[in-house]
């Protein structure tokens, strides 16, 4: 096993142990902290596919996160009020249904955004993805049917067949399982033909085209899949807070996801996990000391960018090896 693999296992076990340790210490609040880590990690795993593997610095992933969140909120509110959605389609308070809807809706949005923005690169790409996400944000704000600026509450956490999702540890385990499933998927993709083409296009787009692989289609597919994963994370986030609001779609959220990945290690399989654990811990520890904890986060980020380009994973495991 490589150092990176060992560290990945340590991270996975640490996150899994966290809520149980919290329960043992009689601090149930920490369970939701661990759940938050798992969900943010999942959202960042999605972004990592585009940003880390594909080199596509999307500053608009909050849109997909928010769309997933609204999918959960809207479906749940229709189910709760027993009002059909459009075309007599009923709402749903079942997580698997909600996840599928969240993934499809976010994937569709990612397709639209990606189809346009992937024709650009560099700073233009960053700005266009940001602009699209802000459009979704303002749309959500100005949509009174689903709470507008005030957001939308989920009266009861959505269910999962055979499980009691109201139990915090159960909900944590659901989130954790999805995170692991997404990591498994990304692990396979990273080492596959598709992953090779995607990572090669990040390193040298001219070369990839010169051998006959059109980078655009590869990137668009990665971007859509990336948006879908982040969308599912958004649905979970809404269920964690039992609340969804336009702030899930704000550029702060997009920035937060990028920060997570940089902290943990961009393009590293467990980078988002390391980043999410660090981020939530910092938010919790520093946030308890000072309102201006983001200032310290900024300093840490600066340190990472200047002195530890590979983030936490890079620091522990060194450069990636591509075989």
């Amino acid at each position, binding site marked *: 096993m490589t150092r990176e693999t060992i560290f990945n296992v340590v991270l996975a076990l640490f996150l899994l142990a966290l809520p149980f340790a919290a329960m043992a210490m009689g601090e149930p609040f920490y369970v939701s902290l661990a759940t938050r880590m798992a969900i943010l990690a999942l959202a960042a795993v999605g972004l990592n596919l585009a940003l880390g593997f594909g080199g596509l610095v999307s500053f608009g992933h909050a849109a997909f996160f928010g769309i997933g969140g609204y999918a959960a909120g809207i479906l749940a509110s229709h189910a709760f009020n027993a009002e059909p959605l459009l075309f007599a389609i009923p709402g749903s308070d079942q997580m698997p249904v909600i996840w599928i809807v969240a993934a499809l809706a976010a994937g569709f949005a990612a397709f639209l955004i990606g189809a346009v923005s992937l024709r650009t690169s560099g700073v233009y790409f960053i700005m266009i993805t940001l602009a699209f996400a802000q459009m979704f944000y303002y749309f959500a704000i100005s949509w009174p049917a689903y709470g507008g600026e005030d957001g939308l509450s989920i009266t009861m956490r959505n269910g999962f067949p055979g499980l009691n999702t109201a139990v915090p540890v159960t909900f944590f385990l659901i989130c954790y399982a999805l995170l692991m499933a997404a990591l498994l998927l990304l692990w*396979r*993709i990273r*080492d*596959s*033909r*598709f*992953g*090779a*083409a995607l*990572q*090669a296009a990040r*390193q*040298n787009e*001219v*070369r*990839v*085209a*010169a*051998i*006959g*692989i*059109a980078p655009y289609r*590869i990137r668009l*597919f990665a971007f859509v899949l990336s948006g879908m994963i982040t969308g599912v994370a958004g649905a979970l986030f809404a269920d964690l807070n039992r609340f969804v609001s336009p702030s899930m779609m704000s550029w702060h959220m997009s920035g937060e996801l990028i920060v997570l990945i940089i902290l943990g290690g961009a393009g590293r399989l467990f980078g988002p996990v390391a980043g999410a654990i660090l981020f939530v811990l910092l938010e919790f520890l520093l946030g308890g000391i000072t309102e201006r904890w983001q200032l310290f986060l900024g300093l840490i980020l600066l340190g990472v960018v200047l002195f530890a380009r590979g983030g936490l994973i890079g620091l522990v495991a060194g450069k*990636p090896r*591509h*075989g």
Partner: protein
Amino acid sequence: MAEPILDIRNLTKSFGALKATDDVSIDLRDGEIHALIGPNGAGKTTLMHQISGSLKPGSGQIRFLGEDIGHLGVAERARRGLGRTFQISSLTPEFSALRNVMLAVQARQGSSFRFFREVMSDTSLTEPAMAALERVGLADRARIPAAELSHGERRQLEIAIALALGSRAFLLDEPMAGMGQEGSRALTSFLDRLRGEAPILLVEHDMDAVFALADRVSVLVYGRVIASGRVEEIRNDPAVRTAYLGEPA
């Protein structure tokens, strides 16, 4: 006579007021090496870019294997069998030499939308890639990241990639540049054999190599072909000697 593999007619490309290529017509026939020589800035690289599709042709026609390919993008031209190397090596630096070639094998098989099988254990990728590396003498460096290869090794790797693509014609832009004498000699004898597989349009400054290899030579000066013919003809052409070989008329 059979139609040429690659047939270029009246190709022109302007950068602002500068005509980098000016009404260039050349062709490449089966089994031959056609060398393209000319002083720096003559437009040789520009012409290679136009043929491979990374620059849109200003005007003119490019026929490849009997079809007009002028409207196609880089990737599609490559899929049809135009294999090019770059004057300045262009590789995926983090990937090993082997993975650089594997990517070409993968592209040739036309199947990049596969998500689960691990490439490193896929012998349908690794074996042809290793074979190509062996042919250019790079097999023992297969696991080294492209970024860590020497200049000459990177040039070899570029050729291995073109080989792995199973190209129907090679466009080589100064493959000998910076290779050192021994490397140049090895590459010369390699290209000599390679022409039997697919014809080569060879841009090269190393005149020993050009005169040793070329079946035909075209001379490009200020974007125009000022002479084209067999090696002896070009060697003795007074216009060429003045304009390029730097001798008084």
